[in-house]
Protein backbone atom coordinates (compact mmCIF):
# COMPACT_ATOMS: atom_id res chain seq x y z
CA UNK A 1 0.00 0.00 0.00
CA UNK A 2 1.41 3.38 -0.94
CA UNK A 3 1.58 5.55 2.15
CA UNK A 4 1.16 9.25 1.68
CA UNK A 5 1.36 12.32 3.85
CA UNK A 6 -2.01 13.71 4.84
CA UNK A 7 -2.59 17.49 4.77
CA UNK A 8 -1.63 18.99 8.10
CA UNK A 9 -5.14 20.08 9.13
CA UNK A 10 -6.48 16.56 8.49
CA UNK A 11 -3.53 15.13 10.42
CA UNK A 12 -4.35 17.33 13.43
CA UNK A 13 -8.08 16.61 13.18
CA UNK A 14 -7.67 12.81 13.10
CA UNK A 15 -5.17 12.96 15.98
CA UNK A 16 -7.54 15.07 18.08
CA UNK A 17 -10.48 12.72 17.45
CA UNK A 18 -8.46 9.59 18.25
CA UNK A 19 -7.02 11.06 21.47
CA UNK A 20 -10.49 12.28 22.48
CA UNK A 21 -11.87 8.77 21.93
CA UNK A 22 -9.09 7.18 23.98
CA UNK A 23 -9.58 9.74 26.75
CA UNK A 24 -13.31 9.03 26.89
CA UNK A 25 -12.54 5.29 27.03
CA UNK A 26 -10.20 5.93 29.95
CA UNK A 27 -12.85 7.99 31.76
CA UNK A 28 -15.44 5.24 31.24
CA UNK A 29 -13.07 2.54 32.48
CA UNK A 30 -12.03 4.54 35.53
CA UNK A 31 -15.74 4.74 36.31
CA UNK A 32 -15.54 0.99 36.96
CA UNK A 33 -13.08 1.71 39.77
CA UNK A 34 -14.56 4.89 41.18
CA UNK A 35 -18.29 4.07 41.36
CA UNK A 36 -19.41 2.38 44.55
CA UNK A 37 -22.15 -0.16 43.81
CA UNK A 38 -22.67 -2.57 40.92
CA UNK A 39 -25.81 -0.81 39.77
CA UNK A 40 -23.83 2.40 39.28
CA UNK A 41 -20.91 0.63 37.65
CA UNK A 42 -23.10 -1.02 35.02
CA UNK A 43 -23.39 2.36 33.28
CA UNK A 44 -19.63 2.64 32.72
CA UNK A 45 -19.21 0.56 29.51
CA UNK A 46 -21.98 2.44 27.73
CA UNK A 47 -19.87 5.63 27.68
CA UNK A 48 -17.21 3.67 25.76
CA UNK A 49 -19.80 2.17 23.47
CA UNK A 50 -21.26 5.53 22.49
CA UNK A 51 -18.73 8.38 22.37
CA UNK A 52 -15.36 6.59 22.34
CA UNK A 53 -16.24 4.02 19.67
CA UNK A 54 -17.84 6.63 17.44
CA UNK A 55 -14.85 8.99 17.78
CA UNK A 56 -12.31 6.30 16.82
CA UNK A 57 -14.62 5.05 14.07
CA UNK A 58 -14.81 8.52 12.48
CA UNK A 59 -11.01 8.83 12.62
CA UNK A 60 -10.62 5.40 10.96
CA UNK A 61 -13.14 6.19 8.23
CA UNK A 62 -11.57 9.57 7.40
CA UNK A 63 -8.00 8.24 7.50
CA UNK A 64 -8.61 5.25 5.22
CA UNK A 65 -10.84 7.25 2.87
CA UNK A 66 -8.04 9.77 2.31
CA UNK A 67 -5.28 7.15 2.28
CA UNK A 68 -6.89 4.82 -0.27
CA UNK A 69 -8.55 7.59 -2.33
CA UNK A 70 -11.96 5.94 -2.04
CA UNK A 71 -14.80 5.77 0.44
CA UNK A 72 -13.85 3.25 3.15
CA UNK A 73 -16.76 3.03 5.58
CA UNK A 74 -16.17 -0.52 6.80
CA UNK A 75 -15.39 0.76 10.33
CA UNK A 76 -18.97 2.04 10.48
CA UNK A 77 -19.98 -1.64 10.66
CA UNK A 78 -18.19 -2.04 14.00
CA UNK A 79 -19.68 1.14 15.45
CA UNK A 80 -23.23 0.16 14.49
CA UNK A 81 -22.70 -3.37 15.78
CA UNK A 82 -21.40 -2.08 19.12
CA UNK A 83 -24.25 0.43 19.37
CA UNK A 84 -26.77 -2.40 18.87
CA UNK A 85 -25.19 -5.05 21.11
CA UNK A 86 -24.01 -3.12 24.18
CA UNK A 87 -27.55 -2.27 25.42
CA UNK A 88 -28.46 -5.96 25.04
CA UNK A 89 -25.43 -7.02 27.11
CA UNK A 90 -26.18 -4.33 29.71
CA UNK A 91 -29.79 -5.47 30.07
CA UNK A 92 -28.75 -9.13 30.43
CA UNK A 93 -26.08 -8.32 33.02
CA UNK A 94 -28.48 -6.06 34.91
CA UNK A 95 -31.15 -8.78 35.02
CA UNK A 96 -28.61 -11.34 36.23
CA UNK A 97 -27.34 -8.96 38.91
CA UNK A 98 -30.89 -8.13 40.07
CA UNK A 99 -31.72 -11.84 40.23
CA UNK A 100 -28.63 -12.60 42.28
CA UNK A 101 -29.15 -9.60 44.58
CA UNK A 102 -32.76 -10.64 45.21
CA UNK A 103 -31.77 -14.21 45.92
CA UNK A 104 -29.12 -13.14 48.41
CA UNK A 105 -31.68 -10.99 50.21
CA UNK A 106 -30.40 -7.51 49.40
CA UNK A 107 -32.81 -4.61 49.22
CA UNK A 108 -33.65 -4.17 45.53
CA UNK A 109 -36.89 -3.24 43.72
CA UNK A 110 -39.39 -6.13 43.52
CA UNK A 111 -39.77 -8.26 40.42
CA UNK A 112 -42.41 -7.18 37.94
CA UNK A 113 -42.64 -10.34 35.86
CA UNK A 114 -43.19 -13.26 38.23
CA UNK A 115 -46.98 -13.14 38.63
CA UNK A 116 -49.80 -10.64 38.63
CA UNK A 117 -50.05 -10.57 42.43
CA UNK A 118 -46.50 -9.40 42.98
CA UNK A 119 -46.93 -6.99 40.08
CA UNK A 120 -49.99 -5.44 41.72
CA UNK A 121 -48.16 -5.25 45.02
CA UNK A 122 -45.21 -3.56 43.39
CA UNK A 123 -47.48 -1.04 41.70
CA UNK A 124 -49.22 -0.32 45.00
CA UNK A 125 -45.88 0.20 46.74
CA UNK A 126 -44.76 2.47 43.94
CA UNK A 127 -47.91 4.62 44.17
CA UNK A 128 -47.44 4.95 47.93
CA UNK A 129 -50.71 3.21 48.77
CA UNK A 130 -49.04 0.39 50.62
CA UNK A 131 -45.99 0.11 52.81
CA UNK A 132 -43.26 -2.16 51.44
CA UNK A 133 -42.74 -5.19 53.66
Amino acid at each position, binding site marked *: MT*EQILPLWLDIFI*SAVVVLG*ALVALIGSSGLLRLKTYFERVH*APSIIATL*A*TWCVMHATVIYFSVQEQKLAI*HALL*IAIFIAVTVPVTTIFLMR*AALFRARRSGEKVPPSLSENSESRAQAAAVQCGEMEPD
Partner: protein
Amino acid sequence: MINPVLSVALPIAMFLLSLAMFCCLIRILRGPAAQDRVLALDCMYLNGMLFMLVLGIYYSSSAYFEAALLIALLGFASSTAMAKFLLRGEVIE
Protein backbone atom coordinates in the same frame (compact mmCIF):
# COMPACT_ATOMS: atom_id res chain seq x y z
CA MET B 1 4.28 6.40 9.94
CA ILE B 2 5.21 9.64 8.24
CA ASN B 3 2.52 12.07 9.36
CA PRO B 4 4.07 14.31 12.02
CA VAL B 5 1.09 14.85 14.37
CA LEU B 6 -0.42 11.36 14.04
CA SER B 7 2.89 9.63 14.84
CA VAL B 8 2.85 11.41 18.23
CA ALA B 9 -0.88 11.28 18.94
CA LEU B 10 -1.45 7.58 18.20
CA PRO B 11 1.05 6.27 20.81
CA ILE B 12 -0.57 8.65 23.33
CA ALA B 13 -3.99 7.21 22.46
CA MET B 14 -2.60 3.66 22.79
CA PHE B 15 -1.16 4.55 26.20
CA LEU B 16 -4.53 5.93 27.35
CA LEU B 17 -6.31 2.81 26.09
CA SER B 18 -3.85 0.51 27.89
CA LEU B 19 -4.43 2.52 31.06
CA ALA B 20 -8.18 2.01 30.55
CA MET B 21 -7.65 -1.74 30.13
CA PHE B 22 -5.56 -1.72 33.31
CA CYS B 23 -8.49 -0.12 35.20
CA CYS B 24 -10.72 -2.96 33.92
CA LEU B 25 -8.08 -5.52 34.96
CA ILE B 26 -8.04 -4.18 38.52
CA ARG B 27 -11.83 -4.47 38.64
CA ILE B 28 -11.64 -8.04 37.30
CA LEU B 29 -9.17 -9.02 40.02
CA ARG B 30 -10.89 -7.14 42.86
CA GLY B 31 -14.57 -7.36 41.88
CA PRO B 32 -16.61 -8.42 44.91
CA ALA B 33 -19.19 -10.40 42.92
CA ALA B 34 -19.17 -12.44 39.72
CA GLN B 35 -21.24 -9.87 37.85
CA ASP B 36 -18.61 -7.20 38.53
CA ARG B 37 -15.98 -9.36 36.87
CA VAL B 38 -18.19 -10.03 33.84
CA LEU B 39 -18.94 -6.31 33.50
CA ALA B 40 -15.23 -5.45 33.71
CA LEU B 41 -14.44 -8.07 31.06
CA ASP B 42 -17.16 -6.56 28.86
CA CYS B 43 -15.53 -3.14 29.29
CA MET B 44 -12.09 -4.62 28.59
CA TYR B 45 -13.03 -6.13 25.24
CA LEU B 46 -14.47 -2.79 24.13
CA ASN B 47 -11.13 -1.16 25.00
CA GLY B 48 -9.25 -3.91 23.15
CA MET B 49 -11.42 -3.36 20.09
CA LEU B 50 -10.63 0.37 20.14
CA PHE B 51 -6.94 -0.49 20.53
CA MET B 52 -7.13 -2.63 17.38
CA LEU B 53 -8.71 0.24 15.43
CA VAL B 54 -5.97 2.64 16.58
CA LEU B 55 -3.31 0.08 15.62
CA GLY B 56 -4.94 -0.15 12.19
CA ILE B 57 -4.47 3.60 11.70
CA TYR B 58 -0.92 3.42 13.10
CA TYR B 59 0.23 0.74 10.66
CA SER B 60 -2.09 2.03 7.91
CA SER B 61 -3.43 -1.47 7.28
CA SER B 62 -7.02 -2.71 6.95
CA ALA B 63 -6.16 -6.13 8.42
CA TYR B 64 -6.72 -4.79 11.94
CA PHE B 65 -10.33 -4.02 11.06
CA GLU B 66 -11.15 -7.73 10.86
CA ALA B 67 -9.51 -8.31 14.24
CA ALA B 68 -11.58 -5.51 15.76
CA LEU B 69 -14.77 -6.90 14.23
CA LEU B 70 -14.00 -10.38 15.57
CA ILE B 71 -13.32 -9.00 19.06
CA ALA B 72 -16.62 -7.13 18.97
CA LEU B 73 -18.58 -10.21 17.82
CA LEU B 74 -17.03 -12.72 20.22
CA GLY B 75 -17.09 -10.24 23.11
CA PHE B 76 -20.83 -9.77 22.70
CA ALA B 77 -21.41 -13.52 22.49
CA SER B 78 -19.28 -14.26 25.54
CA SER B 79 -20.78 -11.48 27.66
CA THR B 80 -24.30 -12.64 26.82
CA ALA B 81 -23.40 -16.25 27.58
CA MET B 82 -21.86 -15.33 30.93
CA ALA B 83 -24.86 -13.17 31.87
CA LYS B 84 -27.11 -16.12 31.00
CA PHE B 85 -24.95 -18.38 33.14
CA LEU B 86 -25.22 -15.99 36.09
CA LEU B 87 -29.00 -15.88 35.67
CA ARG B 88 -29.74 -19.59 35.22
CA GLY B 89 -26.67 -21.59 36.11
CA GLU B 90 -26.32 -22.97 32.58
CA VAL B 91 -25.86 -21.42 29.16
CA ILE B 92 -27.92 -23.65 26.89
CA GLU B 93 -31.09 -25.10 28.39
